[in-house]
């Protein structure tokens, strides 16, 4: 019973994160800002839902497979959003209108 409640809490938190990402996607206007919020759904939302499912199933082969999926999300989703961000930065000529540039370079 306790496990059920805990897993339900995790899954609800994950769904909440995904809904927030959806709302944020419509409220922000520029691509990079939208992507910042969208990437949250990928990482936190999916991971929270999967953790909830792992708690629900308990320790067996299925939960180990879900655990492999969590590790995959941890590695793959940052790479995906990084490539989108770099493409946008290279392709957009008016990027300086959208964000201010700060430099901490020591060179």
């Amino acid at each position, binding site marked *: 019973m306790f496990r059920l409640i805990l897993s339900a809490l995790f899954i609800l938190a994950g769904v909440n*994160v995904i809904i*927030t990402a959806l*709302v*944020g996607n419509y*409220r*922000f*206007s*520029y691509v*990079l*800002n939208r*992507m*910042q*919020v969208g*990437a*949250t759904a990928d*990482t*936190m939302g999916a991971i929270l839902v999967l953790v909830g499912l792992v708690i629900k199933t308990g320790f067996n*082969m*299925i939960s*180990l*497979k879900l655990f*492999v999926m969590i590790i995959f999300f*941890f*590695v793959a*989703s*940052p*790479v995906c*959003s*990084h490539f989108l*961000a*770099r493409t946008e*930065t290279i392709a957009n000529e008016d*990027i300086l209108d*959208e*964000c*201010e*540039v*700060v*430099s*901490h*370079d*020591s*060179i």
Partner: protein
Amino acid sequence: MYILLLLFWIILNGKITTEILIFGVVLSAAIFWFMCRYLEYSPKYEMFVAKNLLWILVYFIVLIIEIFKAAITVYKRVYSRKIEIQPQMVFFDVDIESEFLRFVLANSITITPGTITVDVDDNHFCVHALDYTLAEGIEDSVFIKLLKKMEGNICG
């Protein structure tokens, strides 16, 4: 790494029988040889993991805490009555020599909500932040300190 490959094979199969185990041992050996031969993998990475096991655990815990802290900040921005954000593009240097650790740093910055690594060129990082508060102090964040400690352990 060999054990990890074998474990992965067993997890994907879903059960342990003699045939699966024999196939797994042979296939993992083949993949391990391929990695050493063509993907520039060498057993010295395993030494690195063994030496830094404690720091890697600490790093994961810190990473999860940072993710939650940043997520709360992003939530406030999304649900505030009026959208008032100042996106920033921050350029900074890190003095981490190892290429793998720089990759880990770039991935942790991207996985934290609100910040995305746009470009990494040698040790010049270019990070886009949703709001200027998220980019504050990014050039000497907790991640960099922990990674530097790990790097010190490689040589010493």
